């Protein structure tokens, strides 16, 4: 019984949503679902937030490695919660928007959250360079093709690429690197993208059917018998 009910719920909800597409009266059920999901997610936040507090309190209590930093995390978390729930320093008072300009919540966002996020994102500039350095090597045929394609695109978008092949006559203009870069983007690149996308979609269809039919049930903590 405990095992069967979830499988039945999955089956019914899945089938109903597939079929709903064909009936205008209920085609909006998808959107209702996304609201349900958001609501479930808020409740789940209590699990996540609770886990965060528990893990870090535990670290502090047992004086595990780096326990000092756990205090920092807890302090940041609780301060943000207080700032948002009680709308501290909010110029519009308690009824105003939580993210009103000048509120502690928004200040912490602008001063702390935003620079941290932007810098973490900016680290990509370094990693993209080191990945090219290490991974773009003509190790085998696949890697060579990857290397050539990305090298052409890279060159095609710098002045270097423009000058390097501008001597090629107009009648062979496709071989000029900027044009070659465009051709790669619009032809083989498109083909690869399409194959990947069609494949993904069929994978999703098959996976969804396995889930709806209860063939796949690992996610429910039920091993496949």
């Amino acid at each position: 019984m405990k095992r069967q009910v979830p499988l039945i719920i999955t089956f019914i909800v899945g089938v109903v949503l597939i079929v709903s597409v064909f009936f205008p009266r209920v085609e909006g059920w998808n959107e209702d679902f996304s609201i349900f999901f958001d609501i479930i997610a808020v409740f789940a936040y209590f699990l996540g937030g609770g886990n965060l507090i528990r893990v870090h309190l535990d670290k502090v209590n047992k004086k595990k490695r780096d326990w000092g930093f756990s205090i920092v995390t807890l302090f940041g978390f609780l301060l943000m919660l207080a700032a948002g729930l009680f709308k501290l320093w909010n110029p519009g008072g308690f009824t105003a928007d939580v993210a009103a300009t000048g509120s502690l919540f928004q200040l912490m966002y602008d001063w702390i959250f935003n620079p941290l996020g932007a810098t973490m994102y900016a680290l990509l500039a370094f990693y993209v360079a080191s990945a090219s350095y290490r991974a773009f090597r003509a190790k085998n045929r696949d890697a060579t093709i990857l290397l050539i394609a990305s090298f052409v695109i890279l060159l095609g978008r710098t002045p270097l690429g423009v000058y390097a092949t501008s001597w090629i006559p107009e009648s062979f203009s496709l071989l000029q690197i900027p044009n070659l870069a465009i051709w790669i983007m619009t032809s083989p690149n498109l083909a690869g993208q399409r194959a990947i996308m069609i494949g993904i979609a069929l994978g999703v269809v098959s996976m969804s059917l396995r889930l709806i039919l209860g063939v796949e049930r690992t996610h429910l903590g039920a091993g496949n018998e």
Partner: protein
Amino acid sequence: MEEIGLWLGAFFTLGIISFLYKDNPWYKISESVFVGVSAGYWFIVSFWDNLYGKLFVGVFENQDYILLVGGVFGVMMLLRLLPKGGWISRWPLAFIVGAISGFYLMNYFSSNVMKQVYSTMLPLFSNEFGEPVFSASVADSVGTIMVAVGTFAGLIYFFFSKEHKGVFGGAAKFGIWVIMVTFGASFGYTVMSRMSLLIGRMYFIFGEWLKLIE
């Protein structure tokens, strides 16, 4: 006030960048602050937007009682905290998985399979001058054929139930090459845009904070 913001921003920017050299206490502080503050931030946003904005306002002000279903599922989710209630938290999960499967199945099916197949159906030749000629230019026709052949080969690579041997294996091999070109192209393309992110941060440090740049 503005000064505090600049210094905090600079402190955390440099803290994150220091990770490139190695893990160190400065990075650890930045990381810990980031985790705490951002977890709190999204909790608050979700609290006001969803719990208050959707559930509370929806039920008590707009009398939209169907939303209570979401609320009930949400409470079931929390029952896993009770020693005996764990099993019931699988219900909302089963609901989510069912809905996602149904929704994604139709969505991917129409937008990925059908649209992609549809837009690959291009003519190989055209009839512009009264007789069959390559469409627009040789390059275009070669492009169209390349797209079709490449898509075929790519799909063959993904075949699971046939061994990649012989002609079929050759096609699959060509397919993975096409996919590699795709990957190479998008990698090369992305290198460009990632650099500008770093430029932005460096301008913050040297321009806005230290005011060393004109």
